[in-house]
């Protein structure tokens, strides 16, 4: 397939809404563009509408209103089997009565491709996912990781304009998950295939995506590159969902942030005034002198390379990840003075009280 690259196609959703009943709004006026050849992840807690959005792109659900375009062609009401889209399912969905080869060849057979072409393309797809030589195996004789690779090969062999992933790794154990996701990313980049990837695992999303779309309650909350979302979350929900963070009430005067009596310089394009300060755990340093935010140690867990602390202050609790053990071993109820690196600080509007429903 390397000799005939897939023509990458954009996906566009315009004002798409899906109602499951009059009361249940699964997806609420979503606008979304997936640039050709990129991998975009829909990330959010369960019930946020990410899977429904994916299934509407696949054609397995029909949008109640709005329009969906694939390759600049409207497909809103086009049945799933007429769309150039394939999907990798959470449950693998391998056909139990077919062996590996038959599973991968299925789509080509349905399309009545010549027998020789089916054979060579199928074997090539299997080689691509690293399953050469297993084509005659029964699918239930494969490990979970291998099964998901078969599912991937089955989707790739169709050379779809868009490849969809519905939480493809959630049935794998942690170690395998990491490897398969790297392989998926690798293949996707190599083939330059437009992909939409649904997950509720933020680490997976950060590792794999060109762009992440965070959804909650059927709406898109924020979209951006992994780095943008991590360093500049738009809301407390996003900040909380991607990575972890502490939130303290503070004041911003355009140059510096003040929490309690402690000020530190910070530059951000946000109006001066009361703000909520988001602090990433790794942005926290222990001050050697007394210059810093005064807190007391509430708990600490030594994790080898780092130590996780929770400090309490009158402005709220602060979670911190500190390399090594710090300069002096800190015990419960010790006083600690914290300073913050600007890179892990982000200011949010003061009234953003939105909570992560998962927390």
């Amino acid at each position, binding site marked *: 397939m390397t000799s005939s690259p897939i023509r990458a196609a954009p996906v566009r959703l315009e004002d798409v809404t899906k109602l499951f009943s009059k009361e249940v709004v699964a997806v609420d006026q979503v606008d979304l563009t997936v640039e050709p050849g990129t991998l975009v992840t829909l990330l959010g807690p369960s019930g946020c509408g990410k899977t429904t959005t994916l299934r509407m792109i696949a054609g397995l659900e029909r949008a109640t209103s709005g329009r969906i375009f694939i390759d600049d062609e409207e497909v809103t009401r086009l049945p799933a089997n007429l769309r*150039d889209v394939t999907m990798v399912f959470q449950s693998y969905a391998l056909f139990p009565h077919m062996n590996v080869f038959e599973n991968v060849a299925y789509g080509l057979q349905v399309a009545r491709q010549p027998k020789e072409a089916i054979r060579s393309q199928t074997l090539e797809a299997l080689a691509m996912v690293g399953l050469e030589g297993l084509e005659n195996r029964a699918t239930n004789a494969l490990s979970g990781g291998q099964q998901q690779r078969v599912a991937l090969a089955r989707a790739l062999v169709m050379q779809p304009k868009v490849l969809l992933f519905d939480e493809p790794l959630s049935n794998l154990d942690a170690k395998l998950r990491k490897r398969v996701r790297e392989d998926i990313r690798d293949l996707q980049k190599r083939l330059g295939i437009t992909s939409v990837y649904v997950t509720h695992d933020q680490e997976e999303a950060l590792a794999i995506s060109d762009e992440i779309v965070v959804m909650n309650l059927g709406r898109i909350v924020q979209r951006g590159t992994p780095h943008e979302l991590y360093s500049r979350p738009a809301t407390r929900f996003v900040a909380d969902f991607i990575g972890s963070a502490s939130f303290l009430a503070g004041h911003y005067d355009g140059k510096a942030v003040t929490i309690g009596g402690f000020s530190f310089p910070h530059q951000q394009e946000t109006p001066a005034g009361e703000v909520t300060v988001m602090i990433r755990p790794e942005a926290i340093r222990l001050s050697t002198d007394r210059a810093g935010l005064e807190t007391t140690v509430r708990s600490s867990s030594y994790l080898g390379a780092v130590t996780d602390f929770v400090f309490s202050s009158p402005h709220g609790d602060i979670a911190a990840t500190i390399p090594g053990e710090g300069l002096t071993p800190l015990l419960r109820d010790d006083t600690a003075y914290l300073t913050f690196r600007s890179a892990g600080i982000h200011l949010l509007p003061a009234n953003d009280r939105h909570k992560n429903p998962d927390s």
Partner: protein
Amino acid sequence: MATAHAVSTRRDLRFSGAWIPALIAGIAFLALPFGRPDRAFFTLDPAFRPWALGSLWVWLVLAFALLALIASLLPLRVTARGELLTVAGGLGLLSGVSWLMGTGTPFGMGALLSLIALVVVTGYGLSESGRIQSDAFVASSILFVSLFIILFILFPLFIVLRTAVFVDGSFTLNKVWSTLNSPLFIFAENPYTEQSELALMSRFAVIGTVLGALWALSRRLKFARFALTCGVAAAVGFFIGFMIYGRGALPTSLLVATIVATVSTLTGLVFALLGQRTRFGFVQRSLGAISLLPIITPPFILAFALIFMFGRRGIVTYQLFDISSNAIFGIVGVSLAQILAFTPIAYLVIRGSVASLDPALEEASQTLGADRWTLFRTVTWPLLRPGLANAFLLTVIESFADFGNPLILGGDRGYLATEVFSAFAARFDPNEAAVYGSVLLSMVLVIFFAQRWWLGRSSFVTVTGKPSSGSFAHLPRVMEGLLLSVFALWTLLVLMLYFSILYGSFVQLWGINNTLTLKNYRDFMTIGWPVFLYTARVAAVSAIPAAFLGFLIAYLVVRQRFFGRSFVEFGSMLSFATPGTVMGVAYILAFNVGPWLLTASSVIIAIAFVFRNMPVAIRGGVAGLAQIDPSLEEASTTLRASSSVTLRRILVPLLIIPLIGGLIFAFVRAMTAISQVIFLVSPGNMLATVLLLGWVEQGQLGRAAAMGSILIVSMLTVILLLMLLTRRRDAGVVGVGA
């Protein structure tokens, strides 16, 4: 890769696949006669070609077919074309049907083909317009299934109701009134007896009142509830008296149903308890065989065997005790035959609820110090009650609907199901038959839907209890002995009856000349064998559409969301619940004249079989689909497979066992059916069960026994083959669809 070309689907959208059915509709319209003279299905009579019909209206069919053809080839927007196709197909269909109904001309091959093709066109339209969110195959299937349900279930039943109140073309309630007042229906006070039946019934009411009052006193009820209890008890007492002393079909059917349901439910409970808690393994194994009996046996065969055993020349009555009595003819005989026939059904239902009992519950209660009787009263009984109620109501329905047993053993009393037939076939009064049919139908449907409403969905789907973990305490020895003797008695009786059929087929003249002979089989070979073969052929041919239609309905109902899904569910349930005699009279009334003329042919018999046995396949399909992860179908869909391909390549292979099961059960049920098809047979289209029944009535018992034996043995063989097949296949497909 060398031959790489993306699997494109775009070209599929430039024109619509609807051009094929549209073209077929047009060609069929032009090339074949639209109507037909009377029963000549395959006529090419030019007088029935469209241009000879002298009607412009009928040409609308062609006009709309052409419109659909043009629309499907024009490069329109997909949705716009879909709307156009929907309108063209729908209106074409409507004009064809309205012409047929308006003129009353029986449909010809041209009409059949072109209207079917127009349904497919409409299916394409509904799919492409997005009104049905699936492809043309599913959309067409939904249309076909709905039309089938309307034409072959709702329409005939509607005709029954209409015939009850339309006599000679005008509305009247006279027929209803006269039928319901006739002594054949209700006969409370019999002037030819010395006693006054009404007085006797009142006496029952008095007894009821007294018993009710005593019960109410023991419960210390307040005055209002006291009075209510007494009132209800009086009514129940009168009702019991009415059933016993009343004559006519209504009280008789009610009495028989009450007796049969009570005894069958209790016996079924005995079997279920034994099956779960007996110390004897062989009892458990033979219960499996018992549950097979009603499937392989024509429903009235036991009635026939009862005559052998207890009739005027019965082995037991005449040869053992030297009694020549007609006592078996009447309520006793019918009840006995029905109890033997329906106990296995009650057992299957109760087994489900017994299986759902949790041994832990009983153990828990025992650790709390409950003795066995307390345990049964406070834990087991309340848990069993819904299952028992379910079995009771199902047996009541079966008893009402049963036709063969009362026909053979009914004696001098009438029954609702047989009166439908007698009114139609003996008194030649279709309106009266329709009144009886309406009464029977409404009684059965009220019970059926009340039962569904009370007991929920699980009730009529065969209950498959989860295998209970842990083991149950054995029954107390005394109780087990008691239950085992009931079981032994029942089994002995059934074995004796089956044996008597077999034995009876080998004797010269039952009870009079008991020398062994093969004469009956020789007679059977000359007269019965062709009929048997014909029956097997029609049953086999109808089993295929029955199984596939049932599966298709199961697929549509379980996996697709569409407007009218509950209508499809309701319609198929209706065909399941309607008594055979009612459906029989409905078919003969609906399809004997007019555009849907189908009677006196194998076609009407096959159609009757299809819609009668389809619910069995639906149940199998629903249960099978529940085992299959829907994402398998979605995966197939995203790999460009249409739903027909998905059905063929994914679902059918995965569900092959239940599909074959549905096929076999449809076949066996068709072979043993009687109540509906007895209305539909005609001289050239005789069926084995009908012939068998006729022989019994004529007293040709030897021949009848030969036919019965052959039916039972061949059905048993078929079922055993199926069991062998599923067992072997099950081992190979473990984990399928997990």
